[in-house]
């Protein structure tokens, strides 16, 4: 039997996956990474994209879409803490501004900048989603 590593994929709103994996692929900020069992300990951020887990034993590859998050790798354990929504520094800022605005009940004129940041993040997410779909399609064929 091939060596496996325990994989947990969790988001703040629930657990997505928990089980064994022979190989895990994740979209890290510095480029896509593939993790085999006994990988050196690693912590890195994820960007929007798809996470794939090969459970081994001839079972089909599991796909998950993440819009960002953090991956923690230990030799026999991989944890992916996925974000539930689109996140970017500018967007977080925008959300903060919005919360402030609500409190002040005043109109801010900074909507222009916010819109651009939001559109950019949404575009990045949409592209990543499309790529995931594309990959899935190719696999089906």
């Amino acid at each position, binding site marked *: 039997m091939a060596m496996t590593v325990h994989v947990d994929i969790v988001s703040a709103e629930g657990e997505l996956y928990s089980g064994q994996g022979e190989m895990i692929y994740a979209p890290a900020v510095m480029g896509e990474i593939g993790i085999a069992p006994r990988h050196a*300990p690693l912590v890195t951020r994820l960007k929007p994209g798809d996470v794939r887990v090969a459970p081994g034993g001839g079972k089909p590859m599991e796909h998950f879409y993440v819009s960002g998050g*953090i991956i923690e790798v230990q030799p026999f354990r991989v944890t992916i803490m996925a974000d539930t929504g689109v996140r970017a520094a500018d967007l977080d800022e925008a959300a903060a501004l919005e919360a402030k605005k*609500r409190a002040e009940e005043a109109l801010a004129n900074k909507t222009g900048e916010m819109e651009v940041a939001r559109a950019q993040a949404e575009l990045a997410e949409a592209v990543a989603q499309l790529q995931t779909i594309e990959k899935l399609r190719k696999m089906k064929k």
Partner: protein
Amino acid sequence: MAGAKEIRTQIGSIKNTQKITRAMEMVAAAKMRKAQDRMLASRPYAEKMRQVIGHLSLAHPEQKHPFLERREVKAVGYIIISSDRGLCGGLNNNLFRALVKEVKALQEEEKGVKFCLVGNKAVAFFSRVGGQVLAQATQLGDVPHVEDLVGTVKVMLDAYLDGEVDEIRIAYNRFVNTMTQDPTVERLVPLPEPSEEEREKLKHHWDYIYEPDAREVLEDLLARYIESLVYQSVVENGACEQSARMVAMKAASDNAGSLIDELELVYNKARQAAITQEISEIVSGAAAV
């Protein structure tokens, strides 16, 4: 029989009220179950984060992040979590009462207090009471999402990083069981120090490879960790709201039931008295003829 008719309409209106409270009770019971499931679902995330943060902060004792560092408290920021809707017994009021006591004590020591509010009830309460409100989020609905809270939390964290507040506390109702909700005020930031036991366990531990670098990863992790704690509190408060509402509505339905019983007794007495009176009138009338 004027009195009897009045009583009838009164019974009718109480019955209508009872129907409403009973329906609300059942809705709350169904929602409570879902809210409890959500509460359990969000636990693994925070737990995993805590582990990684523990590793990180112990592996890099030289890199002190502000969220982990304790400083003298001159101002306290409160994130207050309440429900959007009323009719849930004393849930929100109990929390606010506990909070006001704390805030008064702080003000007597001449420490600043700032608020971030979640939920309509907190907004309404603090618009009456007053206080410096930095941000607010309302109408989260039955299924709160982390994204809805990001802004509010960030305002508070920014205030902390800028030194406007030296400690962040969170106030919410902790879910003990269906009958009991515990108004809780906890310190959120700075994070509690890892215990001696954990320290010992990780002493000879390997370190991670960080991409892009340790500080950035730690910053990301901490912000998300705090968000997840706030989210957890919101979800927990939601479960409390539903169970408190269920209990309150059950009490209301029961009260309406006993009120109806009493009124029916009064009604029957009035009816019988009227009939008796009528008969005696007829009999005496017949006797007179």
